[in-house]
């Protein structure tokens, strides 16, 4: 079995986001970038399945600028076998990413495609479902447990009411939740080894698909600031304020 894992390079989750003064976006220059957190879970799960002997090869793919290959190298360092960087400039919307991944799937013919449930930059939560749609594959989103069985996956999904279990035929798409596993850290020797693993570069313009944005970003602004609060001197005062001033208890 072959698993394709899609990863995205995003601003690190510990970085304080700053909005550009001209309203054109957020500041990304000289800002620490990392792999989108649930994409780490997707890579980890693929590696675990390979370690269990149920998968033979893991391919990590990303779409973005040249530097996005760092996320692929990181996936290689924790166990992916080879990588693909699809170079595409500027904003690539989830629909366009799904179309790009469709081309990669057609070429690589994986049995499974894993990715994080959502990227923590644009918070769209679309790419996996869109890829499943255009491939006409089943989708298992928000996965917190994956059992690989004969020709099917049994996937436990995190839904608002609790947990839902579905069975999807392979080939299928799984989007991973943070609770799926504990992503491992790459060891230094493995980071060194990853540098020698193959990483293919493809230019998105060669794929013959329209990836122009369909959504115009008119402006990006800071969320409204909370007005300054007060310090209370005692628990008694706090409870009185909550009862009589804020009227929330």
């Amino acid at each position: 079995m072959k698993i394709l894992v899609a990863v995205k390079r995003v601003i690190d989750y510990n970085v304080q986001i700053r909005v550009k003064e001209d309203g054109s976006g957020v500041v990304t220059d000289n800002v620490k970038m990392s792999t989108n957190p649930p994409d780490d879970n997707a890579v980890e799960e693929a590696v675990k399945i390979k370690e269990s002997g149920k998968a033979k090869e893991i391919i990590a793919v990303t779409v973005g600028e040249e530097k996005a290959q760092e996320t692929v190298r990181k996936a290689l360092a924790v166990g992916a076998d080879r990588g693909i960087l699809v170079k595409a400039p500027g904003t690539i919307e989830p629909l366009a990413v799904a179309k790009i991944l469709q081309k990669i799937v057609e070429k690589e013919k994986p049995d499974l495609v894993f990715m994080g449930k959502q990227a923590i930059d644009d918070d769209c939560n679309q790419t996996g479902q869109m890829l499943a749609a255009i491939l006409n594959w089943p989708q298992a989103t928000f996965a917190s447990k994956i059992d690989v069985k004969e020709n099917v996956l049994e996937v436990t999904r995190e839904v608002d009411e609790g947990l839902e279990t579905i069975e999807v035929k392979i080939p299928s798409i799984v989007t991973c939740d943070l609770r799926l596993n504990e992503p491992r850290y790459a060891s230094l020797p493995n980071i060194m080894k990853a540098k020698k693993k193959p990483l293919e570069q493809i230019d998105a313009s060669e794929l013959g698909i329209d990836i122009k944005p369909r959504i115009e970003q008119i402006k990006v602004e800071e969320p409204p600031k909370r007005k300054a609060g007060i310090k209370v001197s005692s628990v008694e005062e706090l409870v009185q304020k909550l009862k009589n001033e804020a009227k929330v208890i």
Partner: protein
Amino acid sequence: MSVLLIAEHNNKEVKPFTLNAITAASQINDDLHVLVIGKNADPVAKSLSEVANVKKVIHVDNDIYENYIAENYTPVILKQAENYSHIVCSANTFGKNLMPRIAALLDTSQVSDIIKVISEDTFLRPIYAGNAFATVKSTDKKKCVTIRPTSFDPAPTSGGSAEIVKGENTDPSQNTKFVKKEEIKSDRPELGTARIVISGGRGMQSGENFKLITAIADKLNAAIGASRAAVDAGYITNDHQVGQTGKVVVPDLYIAVGISGAIQHLAGMKESKVIVAINKDGEAPIFSVADYGLEADLFDALPKFLEELNKLNTIQK
């Protein structure tokens, strides 16, 4: 121009977030139709026909729609889609799972999780877990939009008298099978929808100490949250995690106990209506977003807090 809203329900009752989504949808255009896909879901279709703002209910009923399977819902919705300018639903796990599948097959770039309708094609949505707001304009002919339910008031459940028409079902998917659903049985409200949330951080020092929080949660009928630090330390399971990589909550009252206020946590709770911070470090960043800050040792403050709550004659539920 008309809007088609996909209802979420359990075949008996409409899920509350659908009512919030109806409010947003009717702000896009007042010719709002609601699609109910289910099994023996007549009561759902009927109750939606009575919701103010709903002009028509389309009801598609078949045994195959007992559970949500996006692969089964999608063809039904695509069949209806040609009559509509907008397809919308709530941005909870139901809508997040379903809508992109529809959007991709309509070749539409979806607008996710809107918090404000600016015009029929322009919306406000949070990005970076609410650390920035983006105003976006969809240029696609047909628009697929998901709505953050907590940003809109629920539509009144009476005052409407929409006609109910039957719609056609389509063939079920052979590739996806529902196995089971385990609903979390808890007397406590869900973290995502609770009116009050009380969360503990690393300052709790142990899982055992979370009982101080549980006691107050019981008293206030609150959900229990936690910071990533508390989850990583193993004090509590990660389904309680509030923050950028956990759940985003918008309760009327959020009480942060022993939480320093890391960026990633603030992203998950700073839209709450009233925020209380209890922390012994007066410089903790959590105080910068708190309406009421109490600089105190939580091990003194929490028992006292419970004591004071017990003195109150009434507590809102």
